[in-house]
Every structure is written in C-alpha cells, then in structure tokens.
C-alpha cells in the first residue's frame, strides 16, 4: 500500500513538474524597465559575421525588432531612419533585429528603405522571445549600461520618437 502511495505521489509530482516546465519555457514575460537586455550573438543581416547588443555598451541603443513581411514595420522604417540620421552618434544608435524572417527578404527590405543603422538577423526569433516580444514591430531603448530604459510594443512614428525617446537621450547625443 505504501509503495502504491509513493508511486502515485511521484506520478503527480512528475505531471506538475512537466506543467510548470511548460509554463516557464513558454512564458513570454516582457522585459521590464530596469532589467538587463539580453544580448546574444546574432548573424549580421547584410554582411558576413556576427554581432551583439553587448558591443554597444556605453551607447544608448534603440533596439527595433522588425520583419520584412510585417506591414507596420514598413510604415515605421522611414521614421526610424530619419531618427537615426538626426540622433545617431557615438552615444546613440538604432540597432535593427530582423526576426523570424528570411535573410534575403530582410536584406531587400533594408535596401529598399535605405536603413543606415546596423542590422542583425534573428531567424528563429529566440532573441525576440528573450526580450518578451509578442510580435513585430517592437522597440526597446537600452541604456549604456545595458539596462532597459523604455519600451513600446508596436510601431513607432516621428511623434513617439521625438516625444518619448528623444527626451531620454543625453544632450550630447542629441547635439551630435
């Protein structure tokens, strides 16, 4: 009788453990302000080699998750490029992450919108999941120390960039 009880408890524990594992592994909690942004190594989109958000430590970085098949991404791309032209400096850059997309499609997209800021390719979407993205586009402003300063799920436009992102950037980067 005791053995049977032990087996029953073990089976119950195993089932609960599996459920917890499933929830934890599928859980997609969005990165919160103040948390350290993930910075895995990713292939560069338009050139050989790899890159990482880590390489931009010391700079403010607006991480933009996008995909060529995403229509709102097409709408926000010109505003992002304009913002990069106005604010890009040694203190600030936009870092595009083309996610769950074909690399050729992503490259064509970047060429079409003449995106001058660096681009990485997150083909399997793992980096997006680490940030807690639920779709594209999503934007995350990362401080020079790697902590998240601001985020928005959805597309940005010139108004959002100028009213919400620009005031967070240090004066030096605004002048550069």
């Amino acid at each position: 009788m005791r053995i049977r009880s032990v087996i029953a408890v073990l089976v119950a524990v195993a089932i609960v453990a599996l459920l917890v594992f499933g929830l934890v592994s599928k859980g997609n909690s969005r990165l919160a302000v103040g948390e350290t942004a993930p910075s895995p190594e990713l292939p560069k989109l338009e050139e050989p080699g790899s890159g990482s958000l880590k390489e931009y430590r010391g700079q403010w970085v607006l991480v933009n998750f996008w995909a060529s098949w995403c229509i709102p991404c097409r709408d926000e791309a010109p505003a992002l490029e304009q913002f990069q032209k106005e604010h890009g400096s040694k203190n600030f850059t936009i870092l595009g992450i083309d996610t769950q997309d074909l690399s050729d499609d992503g490259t064509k997209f970047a060429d079409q919108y003449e995106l001058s800021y660096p681009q990485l390719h997150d083909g399997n979407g793992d980096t997006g999941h680490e940030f807690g993205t639920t779709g594209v586009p999503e934007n995350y402003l990362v401080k020079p120390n790697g902590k998240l300063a601001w985020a928005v799920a959805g597309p940005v436009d010139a108004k959002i960039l100028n009213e919400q992102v620009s005031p967070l950037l240090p004066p030096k980067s605004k002048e550069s």
Partner: protein
Amino acid sequence: MTFSPRGGRLTTIFAVLVALTALLAPTVAAAAEAPSSLRTTLNEIEEEVMCPVCGTLLGLAESPQATREKAFVEKLVKEGKTKSEIKDELVAQYGDAVLAEPNGSGFSISAYVVPIVAFIIAAILLAGAVWKWRRSSGGGDGSLPAVEGPSDEDRRRLDEDLGRYDL
C-alpha cells in the same frame, strides 16, 4: 492436342520467366525512377514544416510570414533541391523550430522517449494488475480454482429426481 515432355518443360520455363518479369518490372521501374522520386513538392514540404510565427503547420498557415516561407520553399523546389536540402535551408533561416517533427536531440528527444516509457510503465502496471487479480481469484499457480462436487443432500435429491423420471 498433345505435348511432348520437352515441350511441356519449355512452356513451364516460359511461364515462370513471364511471371518473374511481371513481378520484377515495377521494382526495376521504381529503381530507374529513383532520382526523380527524390524531387519534392511544395505540398509535401508544407505538411512537414512549421510556420514559426503562427505555430502551425505551414500548410495550414495563411499569415504574411507563411506566404514568404512558401515562396521560399517553392523557389528551392524549382531549383531542384531535395526535401532534406530544403529542410536544411529552412533550418538555416528559421532554426530547428521550423521542423514539425522533433529533431531527436536535447529536450526534443523526450517527444520520442516519453511515449515509449509511458507504454512500458502501462504494460508493467497492467501485467501486475492481471497477476494480482488472478492470485486473488484463487489460482496462484495459474490453474482455475478447484470446484467442489455436489453435497450429499444434492446427490440424494438428484437420485430421487432421476428415479421419478425412470431414466
């Protein structure tokens, strides 16, 4: 109509050869077509890979990402790539998650191992339950429980009944 023994033997050999040819023809034809059978189609691939964004089979997906993925597969099919080459290209683009079947390494192996282990455990439990049931029903050695014969009273009544009917 008569046949000489020699003629009959030739007829038998001929019949066996015809039968063998008929049996082997499809195999030979299939072997000859082997290279083309490696060719695949979009429909075939769609049933074996995922749309990573939708989380469903590519064949069931209609999202913009799925449309691009289908176009990519179609392009590779037209280039004459085999099914495994196309899957490799998809994995290079989207990672292992694009494969509908678990890849059989790391945690994915549990998809294969868990059902087998569950089946073995269920079989052991079932065998144990049957063994226990048979033991509790009396025949510990597998034989049926002994049946007692009629009592003396029953024998007497049976004899009376038989005597009454004069059998």
